[in-house]
């Protein structure tokens, strides 16, 4: 393997070179230095285009709340009605909502989301606060419960509503055939009233149980580089 001229580059030497220290064969050091040389003007030619994109990204904060609910709905769509019903019967407190909130959804659905998920939301400042206040790990009901004072199983109604909305996109009428929703239909006053009832119900809870914690606390991904979703992020389309 070695020629008459070779300096066998050991790991130590190699590591020094990779850190930018002079080491090893001169030619190799020079090559690396050239590769890492300061920028030439031509390399910054795309600056204005990038800045334009930056401006545009900051001009559309109004989209963000809509994006959040879209993401919530998208996440919950993956939760089948069966699972939702099972979760609801298991916990009396709107299991689906809390399941989403605690990140117990399977990884691909964005459960404990890493700190960088370009498909996730941009509402950086808001989400962590809401998430922190929410007792996401505990099975107790949300402290700031907006449940109506009159009905006792109201948290489960919220969960039912979420499950309904998750399934209703495809076929609302059929979704309500599921016996799990009997109680919801009763409370809403009829199958045809469920949609409006749920919209109203969930409206009052919006922002208190975010379905995703895009940024939470950067516990496991301090450097921000995604570990397990190397392909998911960059290929998203705008408005996803």
């Amino acid at each position, binding site marked *: 393997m070695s020629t008459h001229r070779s300096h066998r*580059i050991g790991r130590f030497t190699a590591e020094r070179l990779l850190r930018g220290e002079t080491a090893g*064969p001169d030619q190799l050091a020079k090559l*690396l230095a*050239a590769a890492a040389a300061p920028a030439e003007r031509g390399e910054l030619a795309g600056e204005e285009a*990038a800045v334009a*994109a930056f401006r545009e990204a900051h001009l559309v904060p109004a989209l963000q709340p809509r994006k959040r609910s879209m993401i919530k709905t998208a996440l919950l769509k993956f939760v089948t009605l069966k699972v939702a019903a099972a979760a609801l019967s298991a916990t009396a407190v709107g299991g689906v909502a809390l399941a989403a909130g605690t990140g117990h959804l399977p990884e691909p659905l964005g459960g404990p989301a890493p700190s960088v998920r*370009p498909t996730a939301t941009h509402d*950086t400042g808001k989400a962590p606060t809401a998430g922190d206040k929410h007792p996401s790990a505990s099975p107790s009901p949300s402290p700031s419960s907006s449940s109506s004072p009159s009905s006792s199983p109201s948290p489960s109604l919220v969960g039912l509503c979420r499950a309904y909305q998750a399934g209703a996109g495809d076929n609302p009428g059929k979704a309500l055939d599921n016996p799990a929703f009997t109680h919801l239909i009763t409370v809403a006053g009829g199958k045809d009233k469920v949609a409006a009832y749920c919209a109203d119900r969930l409206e009052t809870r919006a922002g208190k149980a975010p379905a995703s914690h895009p940024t939470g606390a950067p516990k496991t991904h301090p450097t921000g580089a995604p570990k397990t979703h190397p392909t998911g992020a*960059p*290929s998203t389309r705008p408005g996803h």
Partner: protein
Amino acid sequence: MVSESAKEPTGVQRLWADPVDVSAAVVAAQRGDEGAFRVIYQVVQPGLLRYLRVLVGEDAEDVASEAWLQIARDLGSFRGDSDGFRGWAATIARHRALDHLRRERRRSGLSVPIEQMADRPSDDDTAGSALDALASDAALALIARLPRDQAEAVLLRVVMGLDAQTAGQVLGKRAGAVRTAAYRGLRKLAKLLERSGTARPDGSGWGVAGADGEGDTTQ
């Protein structure tokens, strides 16, 4: 081609300056500070572009602009320090590059253009700062002749300024694997340099970019 910073009286000869810390600029840009975003671009783009140059050849500018669109759009969701940001940007760029390569392969059936880099005609020998660009291009062209995992490991460390851990996250590998790939890459580069070591008229001495047409596939 050693940069000025190598002459710092720190006792250690440096081949290039330490990566600039952009963490404050990132935070400011996330709050809408356009000037901070420009700083980020100017600091990160050169390395990004060179990394992409080896991955996608002459389409590097196009892929880089796609990457910056996404970086700008998703900036708000980033959390981390300066190294983390470089890693994040590199990951975005890499995925854009891989998407691009897939599209290109489907369209024309071309093989990965990394090998094309080595045959890319270098700029004509012009004096002055053109030599800097030439040297940088020549260096990248030689790196492009490495197996891709070695090339990426070397580039992410040297050109993007990432440590082995962060580079591993970009590549989806453990730090140890990235270190090994980078070390192998350096050894291979050294071998390529030795083998083609005839000096060119301008004294660059690398004999790359097609002067030596052998494709060395062994490690």
